[in-house]
């Protein structure tokens, strides 16, 4: 590991976000590099100072009592039947919409990337696309460095699809292409802007491939491969759904995989 990579990895190591193998690799560099050791010590000093002198404000007893009382009354009451619940359980998308509305109404600032894209002028759209690309790359790299690149481990599409449906109310098309050399590893959920995206994770030889399922309104400009530090970002179609692949595969492998995905319904 060179020093530049180590510098990028240092906060991840310090914050316990690296898996064991990556940690060991980093520690090997640390043994040999006094600069990185000093940087690590600096981070640690700052943390100690904060933990010692930025006291965690404990909730006042009065507040605790208030919440306890609220919790007791709110939970002991028999649940009133809501009109909208009358016809069975609400559709999945409603829970998803509600969470979006909640974030939106309360924050007032969480204007989603997708919403602004359609309406904005050209430069704004270009920068939104660039931001989306950055988010997808960051998500992929972080997943590579993390203990596990997936939240749900499965080689079975019948597990992955309902898992997404339960978590975020959307069920992307999931297929396993193990026979063609692209094995389904599992799935996870990541953010791009303020939107939660389903990510399908595949493995092809040594390559880990992230397939980000994008909302209908989002599109990455053009099909041209976007390159960053040896990783490619490519806009593809997952059936009729917009999606993006981030991986370090070469173009031929990628084209093959994109074709497989595009053929799925």
């Amino acid at each position, binding site marked *: 590991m060179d020093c530049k990579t180590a510098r990028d990895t240092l*906060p991840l190591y310090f*914050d*316990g*976000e690296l898996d064991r193998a990556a940690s060991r690799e980093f520690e090997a560099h640390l043994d040999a590099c006094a600069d990185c050791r000093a940087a690590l010590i*600096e*981070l640690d*000093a*700052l*943390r100690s*100072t*904060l933990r*010692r*002198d*930025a*006291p*965690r*404000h*404990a*909730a006042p007893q009065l*507040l*605790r009592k*208030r*919440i*306890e009382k*609220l*919790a*007791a009354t*709110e*939970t*002991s*009451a*028999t*649940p*009133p039947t*809501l*009109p909208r619940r009358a016809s069975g359980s609400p559709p999945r998308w409603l*829970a*998803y919409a*509600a*969470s979006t509305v*909640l*974030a939106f109404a*309360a*924050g*007032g*600032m*969480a204007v989603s990337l997708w919403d602004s894209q359609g309406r904005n002028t050209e430069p704004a759209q270009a920068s939104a696309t660039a931001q989306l690309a*950055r*988010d997808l*790359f*960051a*998500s992929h790299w*972080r997943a590579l460095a993390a203990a596990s690149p997936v939240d749900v481990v499965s080689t079975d599409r019948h597990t992955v699809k309902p898992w997404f449906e*339960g*978590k975020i109310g959307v069920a992307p098309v999931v297929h396993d292409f193990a026979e063609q050399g692209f094995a389904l590893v599992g799935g996870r959920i*990541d*953010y*791009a*802007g*303020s939107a939660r995206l389903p990510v399908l994770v595949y493995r092809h030889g040594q390559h880990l491939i992230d397939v980000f399922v994008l909302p209908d309104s989002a599109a990455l400009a053009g099909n041209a491969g976007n390159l960053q530090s040896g990783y490619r970002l490519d806009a593809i179609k997952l059936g009729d759904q917009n999606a993006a692949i981030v991986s370090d595969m070469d173009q031929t492998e990628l084209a093959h995989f994109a074709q497989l995905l595009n053929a799925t319904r």
Partner: protein
Amino acid sequence: MNVTATAAPGWIGELALHHLDAAYNLGRWLLGNEHDAADAVHDAFLRAARAADTYAGGSARAWWLAIVRNCCLARLETRNKDRRNISIDSAANDDGDSARSAVEQLLPRSEANEVEERLDQAQRRALIARALHDLPQEFRETLILREIEELSYREIADVLQTPIGTVMSRLARGRALLHKALVGTAASEVTHGL
């Protein structure tokens, strides 16, 4: 949308009480005073109770803190609109000096030493509090969630409703800014272990 209170599932109460200190601490650092922080947490509980069905897995603590944060931001917004006095913890403005001289006059030497140690701590705390309050909100909240509440990157991303890459860059920038601020002030003060 139906906003009348519905019965919250028991887990909401349990969750909120279990992470009440975390919620209140976040509120204190976002809003700057006890009263607003307590009210924001109260609002957050009511909202969480109504929105229990929006919890879609993942860290429940992050889900709860995201609601708390949204309530704090809503409060900040009305406060800024009102343009009334923005209250900041009095501790952040009190560097302990006036208290120190009063103590020195009133107490015999040995006891004054002991009190002085405590005042040093008060002074250090005031210094950090001021440095943190001076940070832009996005760095302050990210630092509090990571260093004090010890949330993972993923949880912080869920609380802030932002990509992990943004969490990482805010954390790096926030740490650098805070370090700079503290080193700057420490140079003119007695040692702070920095």
